[in-house]
């Protein structure tokens, strides 16, 4: 087991390097010169002044040197400064990250507690009206744009209860109830598509497991249906479901970006978007890398968990 974890950790290094390289290359290759953006192209800033600015930002160095400096600084915890506000990017992102993570975890939690029971019932009552409704519901859930669900929720709560979300973020540590009140709607909006995916996956694997010999044996030797269902079938059916949920958690951090915008939450996604609109390249670079690293780490944890749950996978 520890060998497997070490192996995966070693593989992490090239992946992270490759990702940082890709992000860096993307920001250099795409059109638009940072210096032009800061100084403007209307000619009010002389080209000599622009060159000076370029030198001071280290942008006249060769590209590999710039990359090495970026990575080197990142490793010492320095992500640079925002072009817009001059604030250290590390601080901006540290403020944003807890919001996105809380959103993703709550969304995951809500979708899982709804989806797994639905998937199991759907599989057990296969080809009944319930199963059919759940399958259609699953496809519908997959098709709803989460920003629309989020918008409708805001519309509904403000019309029905006259409630609008607070503009300022309330940290969980300060006011748990206020925080949950603020986060529950965005989390549900985030959970809807994931719910559909998890439910469909649970149903499929449950059906597969229910057809296995050991389930038949358990039934044949006269075990009560419930223990068979929970102890024999569900336990084994959940393994692939966990992988799928894990993979979705990474994607959830991405879709959280869109939901954050609707609810005006300043998570990483919203920060990234503001960075793009302000042409704040260092911020975009760092925020993208943060999201990508979180995504990779989550996938690693899921894989390890998977190997631990299913001894057949060991050392793939």
């Amino acid at each position, binding site marked *: 087991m520890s060998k497997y974890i070490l192996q995966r950790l070693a593989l992490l290094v*090239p*992946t992270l390097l*490759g*990702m940082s390289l*890709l*992000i860096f290359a*993307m*920001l250099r290759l*795409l*059109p*638009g010169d940072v210096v032009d953006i800061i100084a403007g192209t209307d000619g009010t800033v002389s080209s000599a002044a622009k060159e000076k600015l370029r030198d001071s930002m280290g942008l006249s160095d060769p590209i590999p040197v710039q990359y090495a400096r970026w990575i080197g600084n990142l490793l010492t915890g320095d992500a640079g400064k925002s072009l817009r506000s001059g604030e250290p990017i590390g601080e901006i992102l540290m403020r944003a990250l807890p919001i996105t993570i809380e959103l993703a975890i709550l969304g995951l939690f809500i979708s899982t507690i709804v989806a797994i029971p639905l998937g199991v019932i759907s599989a057990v009552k296969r080809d009944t009206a319930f199963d059919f409704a759940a399958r*259609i519901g699953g*496809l*519908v859930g*997959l*098709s*709803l*744009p989460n*920003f*629309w669900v989020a*918008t*409708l929720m*805001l*519309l509904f709560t*403000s*019309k029905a209860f006259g409630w609008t979300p607070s503009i300022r973020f309330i940290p969980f540590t300060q006011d748990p109830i206020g925080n949950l009140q603020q986060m529950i709607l965005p989390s549900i909006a985030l959970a809807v598509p994931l719910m559909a995916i998890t439910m469909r996956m649970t149903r*499929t694997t449950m*059906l597969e497991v229910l057809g296995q010999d050991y389930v038949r044996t358990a039934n044949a030797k006269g075990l009560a249906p419930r223990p068979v269902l929970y102890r024999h079938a569900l336990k084994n059916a959940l393994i692939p479901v966990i992988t799928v949920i894990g993979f979705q958690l*990474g*994607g959830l*951090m*991405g*879709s959280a*970006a*869109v939901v954050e*915008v*609707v609810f005006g939450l300043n998570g990483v*996604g919203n920060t*990234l*978007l503001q960075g*793009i*609109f302000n042409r704040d390249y260092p911020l*975009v670079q760092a925020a*993208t890398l943060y*999201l*990508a690293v979180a*995504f*990779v780490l989550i*996938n690693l944890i899921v894989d390890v968990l998977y190997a631990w749950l299913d001894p057949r996978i060991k050392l793939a």
Partner: protein
Amino acid sequence: MSVVTTTPDVITEGRAARTATPWWKFPKRYRNPIGIAGAIIVLATVVIALAAPIIAPYDPSSQGAIRLLPPSREHLMGTDELGRDTFSRIVYGSRVSLQVGIISVVIALLIGGVLGLLSGYFGGLVDTWTMRLVDIMFAFPGIVLAIVISGLLGPSRRNAMIAIGIIYAPAFARVVRGAVLSVKSEAYMEAAKVVGASNMRLVRQHVVPNILAPLIVLTTVYLSSAILSEAALSFLGLGTQPPEPTWGGMLNIARTYMEISPWMAIFPGLAIAILVLGFNFLGDGLRDILDPRLRER
């Protein structure tokens, strides 16, 4: 379905029986209500997009009506903040959704398909490096990558297509590579090689036809994702720019006027959901039909 049927399957599949079957009865494996519902939704949307000038009662950019009207007989879905007819704008918006969805998936299919084909067919270093790149691209949450690419290229319809095409290319590369690998080990490939068929001929005659089924399913599924991504980008202001009507863009504006005219926020989202649902239904049906391993599940 019951085991005892009046006509055994063997006969229905035979030539004699086929001529006797009325034309409206599809062969049994094509009788897939979900898939057919999806096909109808998709076809209807295509017709609406093509016939938009005939179907839309008003010019989508004409600001002739009173602003923010509720739905009425004259304006089926009301009017927006500039007095434009929402129904006409939704009809025209279907063009953007379909166009961006289809072109971006074609981009993904071309990039990913070629990479996957090369990598699976030739193996070796080509394979190693291509798959490494694919792994790294998979390590990004897709929509984040799309936001960054289209944001940096500059918000426009063309750049949204490029961004969405790029983020879905790795998925196509992976599936094509896997399919090619499994085809490569088949006996008929061996036989064709022995007869002296060239690489080009092997790929065209044997590999491509045999990987079409998984590709078709994948394409349909990703069409639904691409339309959702397009809507999300337009919603964030990173896709097709106003005043051109897009469903995502209409939803974005609707947020400002939601309190006074909630219908503005309802219809564009409904349009997105219905079209995406159509592609999802179609994909589900196609999977049942084209992938025999998944049938009966």
